[in-house]
């Protein structure tokens, strides 16, 4: 039984110089979990939106060929008439919320479909449990953290019991634990209920092991295959696959479990080798004096809701401090305090000895820069060029500084483009260039790898290493354990407003099953964190 069939589908948007999808022929059988991968801007979202008829009914553009979903032709069925068979979870959950409260949001789709009241009640309760939302049922949606919102959005699509569930980056905003829960829930839907799941995701390391098929979209063309076969030749791959390629394992393992079975020989070989240096070592302080960033006894929150309780943290020049912890643990709040956006309710924050909340204008941006979770928040000019010149103006740096930074981070961006038309990675690069134009010694990043493809992530890692080598202090809040393994020198884990662990990156992440990167899990109890370390270690004696 076919769930979704594409027949020679070509989609072209008005004003675009080439079609977003070209001659796509595709069959997705019922009960499969299909992973869609590809660089940003390759046509992934268009493909997903074809499945529930948003393309072409909502987006416009010209479409040739046809898409048949559960026996219905999307040319004659607009999205609302497909709502009972296709559930859609968009990239930005908050933008799709209709109701005010969690419970009402979960019921909204069912109300539109006219599901009887008692069935609705039961399904809402089941979904609350399935996604761990029972505590939040009466909460206003506006007060939820990013991960909680994502789970509500998935729940809201699930309650209608669609036969096909389409998700655009469902775990990009989630902490590792929550992401595993969501993926486990999706897998249960596929295995137990025969639901067809189509999901796009950049963090392959989280998803690829669950997939039945991998669909690679490149430049509007689609190729399909078994995960292992597709991964063997893919230009980007999760660490487990890279390690497998390095060690020459056949068949190529996709999960940590399979890799551990194959890794006995490699572990024995590595045991004889000297362990890797403990993370990138902090460079000698360029600025003598107090720690570049310090938070002492910081308490913050909303009325009646403490978010941070007496947090003590400090980072010196050349340190990369990663803040980890589940969604809503207070990471973003701490960053806003460090950047001087909000003053702490109690305690002191110092950036290079100054209170950032008391600074403004050039002294502020010369001391500390923050790239928020949504880089777009920082961008408000109508073109990339204006954005850059505005940044140079406020920073008082010569013209061209920010432009050169952007060129190094993301080459080839057309300066006349509107920032909104950039890809996620390009937007992050632009926000970074804008912030770095003032050369702040302290750089704060909130979830920098959200929505980044592997190429963009690689460039970000290189940049962070350069900045660290130049003596910058970097504090990043992230769920991305692989990023932490690559760049962090220290890791602090926040939970419920407290710092529950603070120490050298390797030590902290290795000791936690949740925060350990894939390589550490495969090679445990060895001290290895990244494929790069293993590669260098193996290269030395050879």
């Amino acid at each position: 039984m076919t769930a979704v069939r594409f027949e020679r589908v070509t989609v072209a948007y008005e004003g675009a110089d080439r079609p977003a999808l070209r001659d796509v022929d595709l069959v997705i059988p019922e009960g499969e979990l299909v992973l869609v991968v590809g660089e940003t801007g390759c046509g992934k979202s268009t493909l997903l939106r074809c499945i529930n008829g948003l393309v072409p009914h909502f987006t416009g553009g010209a479409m040739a060929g046809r898409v048949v979903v559960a026996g219905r032709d999307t040319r004659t069925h607009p999205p609302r008439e497909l709502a009972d068979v296709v559930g859609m979870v968009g990239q930005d959950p908050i933008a799709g919320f209709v109701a005010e409260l969690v419970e009402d949001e979960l019921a909204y789709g069912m109300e539109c479909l006219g599901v009887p009241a008692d069935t609705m009640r039961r399904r809402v309760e089941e979904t609350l449990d399935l996604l761990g939302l029972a505590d939040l049922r009466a909460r206003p949606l506006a007060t939820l953290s990013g991960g909680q919102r994502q789970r509500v959005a998935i729940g809201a699509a699930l309650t209608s019991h669609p036969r096909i569930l389409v998700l655009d980056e469902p775990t990009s905003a989630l902490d590792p634990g929550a992401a595993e829960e969501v993926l486990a829930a999706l897998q249960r839907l596929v295995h137990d209920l025969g639901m067809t799941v189509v999901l796009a995701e950049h963090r392959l390391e989280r998803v690829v092991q669950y997939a039945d098929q991998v669909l690679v979209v490149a430049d509007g063309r689609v190729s399909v295959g078994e995960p292992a076969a597709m991964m063997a030749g893919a230009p980007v791959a999760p660490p487990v696959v890279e390690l497998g390629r390095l060690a020459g394992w056949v068949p190529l393992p996709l999960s940590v479990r399979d890799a551990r079975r194959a890794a006995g020989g490699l572990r024995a070989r590595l045991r004889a080798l000297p362990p890797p240096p403990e993370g990138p070592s902090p460079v000698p302080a360029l600025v003598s004096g107090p720690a570049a960033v310090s938070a002492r006894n910081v308490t913050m929150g909303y009325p009646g809701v403490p978010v941070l309780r007496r947090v003590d943290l400090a980072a010196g020049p050349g340190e990369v401090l990663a803040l980890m912890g589940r969604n809503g643990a207070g990471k973003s709040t701490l960053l806003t305090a460090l950047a001087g956006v909000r003053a702490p309710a109690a305690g002191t924050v110092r950036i290079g000895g100054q209170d950032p909340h008391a600074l403004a204008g050039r002294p502020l941006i010369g001391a500390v820069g923050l790239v928020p979770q949504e880089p777009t928040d920082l961008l408000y000019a109508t073109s990339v060029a204006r954005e850059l010149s505005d940044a140079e103006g406020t920073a008082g740096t010569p013209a061209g500084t920010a432009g050169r930074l952007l060129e190094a981070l993301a080459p080839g961006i057309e300066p006349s483009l509107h920032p909104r038309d950039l890809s996620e990675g390009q937007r992050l690069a632009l926000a970074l260039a804008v912030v770095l134009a003032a050369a702040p010694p302290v750089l704060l990043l909130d979830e920098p790898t959200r929505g980044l493809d592997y190429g963009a992530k690689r460039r970000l890692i290189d940049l962070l290493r350069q900045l660290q080598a130049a003596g910058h202090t970097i504090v990043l809040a992230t769920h991305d354990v692989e990023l932490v393994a690559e760049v962090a020198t220290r890791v602090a884990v926040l939970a419920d407003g407290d710092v529950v662990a603070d120490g050298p990156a390797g030590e902290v992440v290795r000791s936690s099953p949740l925060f350990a990167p894939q390589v550490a899990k495969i090679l445990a109890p060895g001290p290895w964190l990244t494929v790069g370390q293993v590669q260098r270690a193996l290269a030395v004696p050879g």
Partner: protein
Amino acid sequence: MALPTTASPGAPAPARSVVGGTALRVGVRLPRALHPLAWWAWALGLMVAASRTTDPLLLATILAVLAVVVAARRPDAPWGGAFAAALRLGAAVIVVRTLLQVLLAPTIGLAVAFRLPEVALPDWMAGVRVGGLVTWESVLVGFSEGLRLAVMIACAGAANALSAPSRLLRSVPAALYELGVAVVVALTFAPHLLSDARRVRAARRLRGHQEGRLRGFARAAGPVLDGGLERSIQLAAAMDSRGYGRTGSITTTQRRTQAGLVLAGFAGILVGLYGLFDASAPRWLGWPLLGAGALVALLGLRAAGRRSLRSAYRPDPWLAPEWATAGTGLLVAAVFASAAWSTLAVAVTPLQWPSPGTLPLAAVLLAAGPALWTPPLPTPGRWSA
């Protein structure tokens, strides 16, 4: 998750009376949110009352009653601040209204408070004055007129604080549902814009811009409106994907007939109301047309409602506390509508201490009852964020 069960279409509707019955016996004091229509009926009743009086004592009592009920039954949610916002707006209204009366309107009464320099105006502007004598009577008239407006605003604020606009939407007849969604989305657009504006201003600070409050908001306007538009489009896509606006098997002709009935009915109601309030209108324009309009509208709504695909999730029950709350609102409105003007208006010439009638005062005090007899609010889940 359990297997999806398909409800057979022929199955009898669940016996709702059983559920309602239990709720009536046990559930009156069970924590739950009161039906939003009850709150709106109550608040509108008080608003009608406020519009009928200029007595500062009565108006202050209404305000106190609003405050007591809002303090007792306001949910801890983003829209809960609506009452405080309405009070701030009301205070500004009082100040402006009093100043206008004192500075611009013809002088009333003899009790001179003080004298302001008067601006000499050309002859052709006779009857208008700027400055000059300020009497206590003028101050009182301006203040009580301002207070009346402020209390009416506070009534709307209280209704908003006690029940979110989107909750009101659930009780909208199915036929008007789609119109209702459009209104609610428009209503929530403004608060979203405000939070966006704050975010953009924080970002401008991060980017090193220093500017005053007003200037900052002006600079933020472009990106904020941009973002708002973007979000509206995303919301529309999400709603479409989730089945908003499904028509099911209704034919176009049926839909047009229903819409026509509803529209004609509302037009009848409007004209009927006009006939009631305008003494010079012919008599048949009043009650008869109002009644006929209401009937036609009801028929249209019922016909459309029966064909609607939508179902309601956990509909708010209408039980004793709802009757009592909406009833007190209507009672207050009726008392004020029928009371003699002398018991409601403040005596200006000669100046007297206001002496409101006993009946209006008692009715307003009774309207504080919902603070006691409405069920307590459920406590929200643990706030872990």
